[in-house]
C-alpha cells in the first residue's frame, strides 16, 4: 500500500512533466496537423538555457532563491518561445502548402540537426553536465511516505501552467483565434485573423512550456546533454496520441497516465526494463481500439 502511494507521487511528478511536453505536440498538431519532432529538442535547449543563465542570475539574486528560480524560468521560457517561433519560420512555414509528409520528414530533419549541432564540441559537446540545484531540497515525511520538495515544485508549477494555458486558450481573444485557426485556417483568415501570427504564437506557447518542462525534468534528473530530450519527448508524444492528438485536456491526461504507468512499471523488478515497451503497447492498443484517443472525438472523414 505504502509502495503504491509512493509510486503514485513519483508517477504524478513525472507525468506532469510529460503533460507539459505533450501539450506542445498537441497544440502544434491542432493548428498545423503535423507532429513537430523538434519539440523534444526545445526541451533540451531549455535545460541548457537555464544552465547558462543560472550563474548570471545568481550574481544578481541570491543562489537558490525563489525569485532567482522564477527569473531563470522566465528567461528560459522566453528563449525557448523564440526558438520555437524561429524553427517554424525557417523550417515549416515555407512548406505550409506542401503535403504533410514533407513537413513531417522535415521535422525529423530539424530534430536531428539540432541534436547533432549541439553535440559538436564548439556548441555544448556531448558530455553530460551537472544541472544546478535551483532551489534548496527538502524531504518531507508524510507517514511512511517520502515526498521530495522537487516533486511538489514540479506538480505546483504544472498545475499553474495548465490553468494559465486553459485560460489563454478558452478565455482570451488570441486563444479563441487559435481554436478558430485549428478548425479551419481559411475561414479564420476571412475573419481578418493573421494566420501566420497565430501559428507563431502557438509555437511560442508550446515551446515555452517545453523549455519549462526542460528545467523541471533536469531538476529530477540533474544531468543534461544534447540527446536528453529524446526519451521524455518520445513518451510525451505517446501521451499526446494516447489522450487524443489535438486535444489539450487529452494531452495533460495522457502525460499523467504515461508517467504513472512508467513509474509503476519501473518499480516492479523484472518489469522495469520493459517500461518503454509498455508505453508503446498502450499506444498500439489505443490506436487499435480507440484511434481518436482517450478524450479525442471521432471525426468522420468526408469522402
Amino acid at each position, binding site marked *: 500500500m505504502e509502495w503504491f502511494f509512493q509510486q503514485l507521487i513519483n508517477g504524478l511528478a513525472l507525468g506532469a512533466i510529460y503533460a507539459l511536453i505533450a501539450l506542445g505536440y498537441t497544440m502544434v498538431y491542432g493548428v498545423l496537423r503535423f507532429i513537430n519532432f523538434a519539440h523534444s529538442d526545445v526541451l533540451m535547449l531549455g535545460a541548457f538555457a537555464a544552465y547558462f543563465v543560472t550563474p548570471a542570475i545568481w550574481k544578481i539574486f541570491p543562489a537558490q532563491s525563489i525569485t532567482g528560480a522564477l527569473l531563470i524560468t522566465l528567461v528560459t521560457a522566453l528563449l525557448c518561445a523564440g526558438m520555437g517561433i524561429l524553427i517554424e519560420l525557417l523550417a515549416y512555414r515555407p512548406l505550409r502548402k506542401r503535403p504533410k509528409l514533407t513537413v513531417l520528414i522535415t521535422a525529423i530533419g530539424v530534430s536531428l540537426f539540432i541534436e547533432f549541432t549541439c553535440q559538436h564540441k564548439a556548441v555544448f559537446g556531448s558530455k553530460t553536465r551537472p544541472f544546478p540545484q535551483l532551489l534548496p531540497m527538502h524531504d518531507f515525511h508524510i507517514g511512511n511516505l517520502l515526498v521530495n520538495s522537487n516533486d511538489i515544485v514540479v506538480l505546483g508549477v504544472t498545475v499553474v501552467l495548465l490553468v494559465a494555458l486553459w485560460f489563454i486558450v478558452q478565455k482570451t*481573444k488570441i486563444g*479563441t*483565434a487559435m*481554436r*478558430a485557426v*485549428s*478548425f*479551419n485556417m*481559411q*475561414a*479564420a*483568415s*476571412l*475573419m*481578418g*485573423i*493573421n*494566420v501566420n501570427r497565430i501559428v507563431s504564437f502557438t509555437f511560442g506557447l508550446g515551446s515555452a512550456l517545453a523549455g519549462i518542462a526542460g528545467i523541471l525534468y533536469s531538476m529530477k534528473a540533474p544531468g543534461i546533454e544534447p540527446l536528453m530530450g529524446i526519451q521524455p519527448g518520445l513518451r510525451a508524444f505517446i501521451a499526446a496520441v494516447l489522450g487524443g492528438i489535438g486535444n489539450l485536456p487529452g494531452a495533460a491526461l495522457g502525460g499523467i497516465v504515461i508517467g504513472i504507468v512508467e513509474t509503476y512499471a519501473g518499480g516492479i523488478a523484472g518489469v522495469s526494463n520493459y517500461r518503454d515497451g509498455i508505453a508503446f503497447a498502450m499506444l498500439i492498443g489505443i490506436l487499435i481500439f480507440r484511434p481518436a484517443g482517450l478524450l479525442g472525438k471521432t471525426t468522420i472523414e468526408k469522402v
Partner: protein
Amino acid sequence: MLEIKNLSVSYGAISALHGISLEVKKGDIVTLIGGNGAGKTTTLRTISGLVRPRSGEIIYEGQNITRTPPHKIVAAGLAHVPEGRMVFANLTVAENLAMGAYLRTDKEEIARELDYVYSIFPRLKERIKQQAGTMSGGEQQMLAIGRALMSKPKFLMLDEPSLGIAPLLVKTIFEKIVEINRKHGITILLVEQNANLALEISKYGYVLETGKIILQNDSKSLRQDPKVKSAYLGG
C-alpha cells in the same frame, strides 16, 4: 465599388477562370449565376485573397487588392461568407461572432454590432452558448452571415447561401439579405445556383459558364432571356 478586370485563375494545370471582368456598384446587389464548376466560388475566393490569380486585376474602392492577403482585405471592409458556411463548429455561437469582429477593438461598437446581428437573426441570440457545429444548416448559415457582419463590412460576398437549407429558411435568409442591403447600405455580391431567387433580389446579374462570362444584364432582363430561362430557370 468593386471592379474585376480580365481575371484568370488556374489550379495547377487546370484553368478555372479565363479572363473575366465584372463590376459591382455601390449599394447594389449583384449576382453571379451559373452551373456547377462554372467558377463562381473561385471568383469569390480570388477576390477575398484565398486564391491567387494568374493574371488580371481586382480593384476595390480605387485600391488594387489583387495580391493582398485575406486578413488585410477584411480590414478594408470586404467580408466573405464562404461556400459551405465554414462556421467554427468547435466554437460557441458567441465565440464565432467575436471572431467576426476580430479586427475591431472598440468594445461599445462591437456590442452595438452584436445587437444589430441579433436583431436580424433572433435565433442566434437564443443559442449564444451553443456549439456552432450542433446547429442546423439554416442556423449555421445565419451565423456565417452574422459573423461576416460583425466585421462591419461595406461589401459583402455570399457564396450559395441557399445550399443545403430547408426551403422555408431559404426564403427567410433571402429576405434578410435584402434587408442587410437596403437598411444598412451594404453592397452585396451574391453567388447562387438558385438563379430564380438570386435574380429576383438582385439589380444586375452575370452568367458564368466554364470560367467565362457569357451574359450580363440587369436582372429583370436576364429573367426574360430565353437562354437563361432554359438553362438556369427550369424552362
